[in-house]
């Protein structure tokens, strides 16, 4: 979990990538969690239900609250978008 201190975006990106890699493995999704690949079925393969798990895990494991408007069906196109938001709110 990130505290209220200076966290570089590399560390945040690493954390988000680790979370995504774990969830992809659990779901049998192939490939590496490229930050700029599309999050959806045509990229990393996160469907609407697994995106919910992804955001829940990000909020739980980074301690950063993701505002309501960023939840929902397709608010983030890629992992880089999540990294950017977490970096802004940490």
């Amino acid at each position, binding site marked *: 979990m990130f505290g209220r201190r200076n966290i570089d975006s590399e560390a945040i990106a690493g954390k988000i990538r680790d979370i995504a890699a774990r969830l992809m493995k659990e779901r049998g999704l192939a490939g590496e969690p490229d930050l700029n690949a599309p999050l*959806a*079925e*045509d990229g990393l393969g996160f469907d*609407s*239900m*697994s995106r*919910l*798990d992804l*955001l*829940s895990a990000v*909020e*739980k494991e980074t301690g950063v609250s993701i*505002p*309501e408007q960023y*939840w*929902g*069906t*397709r*608010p983030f196109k890629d992992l880089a978008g999540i990294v950017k938001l977490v970096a802004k709110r940490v």
Partner: protein
Amino acid sequence: MIDRWRAWEGAVDCSYSGRLWPAAELRDLADDAAETFASLGMQPGEPIVLMLTNTAAFPVCLTGLLKAGCNPFLTFAGTPKPVLDRLLGEFGIRHILHDFIPDITHLATDAYPEIGGLGVGSIMVSVLENSAATVPADPIPGQGVILLQTSGTYGAPRYCLRDQEAVIAEGRNYVDSIDLYDRARVTVTTPLTHSFAYGSGLIASILTHSTLAIDTAFNPKRVLRLEKQTPSDILAVVPPMAKALLQLGRSDPNRKMARAVFYAGSPIDSAVADEFQTAFGTPLFTILGTTETGGICTSYSPVGPLNGVGRPMRHVGISLRNQDSYSDLGDGIGELHVRSPSIMQG
């Protein structure tokens, strides 16, 4: 189903992002939709892809198609184009109904030419044409048949067909299983194209004159906020939503939740279900989804291969029995007996 639809005194509440639609208003729109669909060349018995998000347009188009004698094929609004192409080819589908909601739907109009449209309030539904369609080898039997895709929780994703009697029987099964009383408020967070959401949400609401609350977004924070404002009697979710509601809601001292929450799909650990009840004071019940219990048809061809209906499920058993002795027959001719805590007769 049309008779039930005509008698329905409930509503569809899109107050998450829009407004409340009384059943009478939806009925008028569905009548207009049926005429529009027929004028655009949709034929009775023709399978039509219903690729819509959770808005008032969904029940309007579903019943509009049934009234026109077409066979609606419920398809997730965010279905990738290659998957849709495969579906269209397999069933020889000529027409697609699609709404364009930012950040959710992504089927570009230039992928299939738009031949018409339907306005439902501020929602625009496009009628798209697949000009490459050819007549399928095995036409779908009957008119007004609903086609569903299973989630694949208990096996590979497959298709199943529901005639309107089966739809009503399954709806009744849901009403009994979730103990839904008349004029209740039912909130469904899953896309209505999902058979569990359409069965436990739309059909069960129609049968009980209930109000169905829906949202275009699959958003747990919004559900928590809206449950605080207007708690539901029944909330139907899938496991990731139940877990997200628990994680995001339990720290809120002012949290509120529906009278009962039901989920279908992959199992939730009993410890999580206990935590949910402790956090919200609301029981989290599991229920078998429509496609897991109700007369699954995996092949509509009378001469095609027989397919399995998925892996064995706990508490569900099937046997072939002699009518007199009620002994298991194994191979042979007899009555098919199905045992399940959540299955309708028939």
